[in-house]
């Protein structure tokens, strides 16, 4: 019996090893079998594994003390040590690392405005990405990279990834926490494929996993108050719901509540506590005196106004003089024509290179971009002497010196064939102001005027690629004193289109046949030469 056991001892040990491995695998897989199965298999496995050393102890002892065992043990120890050193080196490498973004548009480098937001971040923000690892691998990778950069600039951003499939309990706990904190129902299902930013009892949810989405979520969650913007109505303004959809969406993404209001039917006085900013977008009817005065009073009380007023070819006065009066500003009744900066050859369609925008908080991040701001039809703004020294104006965009403000509006609008406008001596000459920012110190509001409203309509933004949306958003953020949100456009991937090959068949022949044959030919020649 003993001899038989000695004979089969190696096989007993191998069987023991298999049983022990199976027990460990079952334990790792957390199978739903009976509780006694895994420990029983493990114990039997260990007992059988010891069969060889116990039943053939003399051979085992001789082997352990032998030359091969000593050298083998030495090799194993050295190999494990080296692998351990490499593992430690990799671990240290994850703590201190550098990454170089070699893409031409710095696709993986966060913008200066995001860095500023992070460095000024006051409350801690916890980011929770709810993404399925199998379906959203690329989004998870993008987020991991982004958050690593964010955390380099501030320790106040924490990040966690929840997979709805593997972390259902944590997801439910998150939904319950958000429901309790916000006072409104938040279900676990509604959090699928979202990024939630939580700061104290406030939270913000976004569905984009790029820099704009993550930064937006952080700003919205950490902001201590909600901002509102009103678009005026009742003066034939550009329709907010049909022609300003893009800009409305962009404002809402930055956390603004956007709505339309007729100042003529307000039941309460318009003050800085009522709304953070009022936008007048392309009115084609004059403002009644009472409404203009309400806007002026609103600014004097700390409110902020954005005026976008197009040239009126019929000579209509929009009657916003009361708003402009503190700064002695005038909206000239002209159409700017600029032969030097005529976009696509159209004298009244003016472009301003971004580097030539005037320095201001709202333009500083745009001046380094190789792009333009364009105005399809604009009137000039005349500056005078403000009523007090605390009231200041800053030009944002100007024409070239060759421009002039054409006042012959009747001829322009008639479109007489062969009519070529020429600068008259009494017409204003360039450089003319296309956009201007005005402020008045403590407790006084802010004003931004554009001599055009068409430059940010949906149709125009789609037709012309420019920095117009960024400039619009920046000026509004300046008006509401949300300087943290002064943005630069999201980095777009460089476009390097390929021309269609004139002879696709020849290209296929060259790359898939001739080139490999050439390689084979070289190999064949080398082999033949060596024969």
């Amino acid at each position, binding site marked *: 019996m003993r001899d038989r056991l000695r004979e089969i001892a190696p096989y007993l040990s191998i069987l023991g090893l298999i049983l022990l491995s199976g027990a460990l695998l079952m334990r790792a897989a957390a199978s739903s079998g009976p509780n006694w199965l895994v420990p029983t298999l493990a114990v039997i496995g260990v007992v059988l594994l010891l069969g060889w050393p116990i039943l053939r102890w003399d051979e085992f002892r001789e082997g352990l003390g032998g030359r091969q065992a000593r050298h083998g043990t030495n090799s194993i120890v050295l190999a494990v040590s080296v692998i351990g050193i490499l593992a430690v080196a990799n671990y240290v490498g994850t703590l201190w690392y550098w990454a170089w973004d070699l*893409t*031409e548009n710095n696709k*993986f480098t966060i913008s200066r405005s995001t860095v500023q937001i992070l460095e000024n971040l006051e409350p801690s923000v916890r980011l929770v990405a709810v993404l399925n690892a199998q379906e959203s691998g690329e989004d998870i990778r993008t987020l991991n990279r982004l958050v690593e950069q964010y955390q380099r600039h501030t320790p106040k951003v924490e990040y966690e990834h929840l997979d709805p499939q593997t972390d259902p309990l944590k997801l439910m706990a998150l939904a319950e926490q958000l429901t309790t904190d916000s006072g409104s129902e938040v279900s676990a299902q509604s959090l699928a494929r979202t990024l939630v930013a939580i700061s104290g009892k406030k939270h913000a949810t976004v569905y984009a996993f790029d820099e704009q989405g993550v930064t937006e979520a952080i700003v919205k969650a950490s902001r201590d108050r909600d901002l509102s913007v009103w678009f005026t109505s009742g003066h034939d303004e550009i329709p907010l719901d049909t022609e300003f959809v893009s800009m409305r969406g962009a404002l809402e993404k930055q956390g603004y509540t956007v709505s339309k209001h007729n100042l003529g039917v307000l039941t309460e006085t318009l003050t800085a506590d009522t709304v953070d900013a009022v936008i007048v977008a392309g009115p084609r009817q004059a403002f009644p005196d009472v409404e203009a005065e309400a806007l002026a009073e609103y600014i004097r009380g700390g409110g902020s106004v954005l005026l976008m007023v197009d040239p009126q070819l019929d000579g209509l006065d929009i009657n916003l003089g009361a708003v402009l009066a503190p700064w002695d500003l005038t909206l000239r009744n002209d159409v700017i024509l600029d032969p030097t900066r005529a976009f696509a050859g159209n004298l009244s369609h003016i472009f301003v290179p971004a580097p030539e925008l005037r320095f201001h908080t709202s333009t500083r991040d745009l001046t380094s971009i190789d792009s333009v701001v364009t105005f399809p039809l604009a009137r000039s703004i005349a500056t005078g002497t403000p009523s007090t020294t605390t009231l200041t104006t800053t030009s944002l965009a100007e024409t070239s010196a060759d421009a002039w403000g054409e006042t012959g509006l009747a001829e322009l609008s008639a479109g007489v064939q062969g009519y070529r406008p020429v600068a008259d001596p009494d017409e204003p000459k360039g450089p003319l102001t296309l956009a201007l920012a005005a402020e008045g110190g403590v407790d006084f509001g802010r004003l931004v005027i554009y001599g055009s409203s068409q430059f940010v309509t949906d149709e125009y933004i789609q037709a012309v690629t420019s920095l117009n949306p960024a400039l619009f958003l920046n000026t509004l953020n300046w008006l509401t004193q949300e300087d943290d949100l002064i943005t630069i456009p999201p980095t777009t991937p460089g476009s390097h289109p390929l021309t269609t090959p004139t002879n696709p068949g020849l290209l296929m022949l060259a790359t898939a046949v001739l080139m490999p044959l050439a390689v084979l030919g070289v190999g064949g020649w080398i082999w033949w030469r060596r024969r």
Partner: protein
Amino acid sequence: MSKTWTVTRREYTALFNSPVFWVLAAGFMFFVGLVFAIYVNGGQAEASMQPLLSLIGTIMLFVAPLLSMRLLSEEQRSGTLEILMTSPVHDWQVVVGKWLGAFLAYVTMIAFTLFYVGIMLRMATSGMDAGAMTASYIGVLLLGGALLAVGTLTSSLTENQVVAAFLGIMAVMVLWFLPMVGQMSSGSTTKFFEYVGLSDHYINFGEGLVDTRDVIYFLSVTAGSLYLAVRALETRRWR
């Protein structure tokens, strides 16, 4: 160092004179050329080598073990390994020299793809993103070095080239797909498997990022595999 370089030169020359290398290279060029032609003929394609280089990384999972299968196993089979080991050359010089020879052959194969870069530059209307392409090529070279090192290790374990190639392919497949194993668990286990796997580190290069963590990873796999190969060779002295 000169002894290592002598072994390298000898190995590189042997590979160049071997039909295996040229058949592999021709097959590689055929496959890559075919995909390249389909890509540029597809219409609205971008002048970017990244899709192609990403594919090349996947192809190399099979090509690199085939390139390295004979490095040490052939020496064992033909009995020349004993001669090599009794000559005044350290084991590590033999291993590193052979790996370096195979790596130079790999670089030669990758250099053939510059032909496609030239075609793309001619066809591009506004140039190419040189930075992203550089990062992709760095990734291809680091990946190749690591895969060849794993192949050198498996080659040191057996005198049968086919077994060495098979073991090499299996080993790199396991390393490549480890992140998927990590997705079945959560927390630190997932992070561990994601880090140890090859694919996530390679993807970063393909997108234009050069991260020191990825560089350290590939260099560690290379150094670790070559060290284990040296240890495997050493066992022959006392087995």
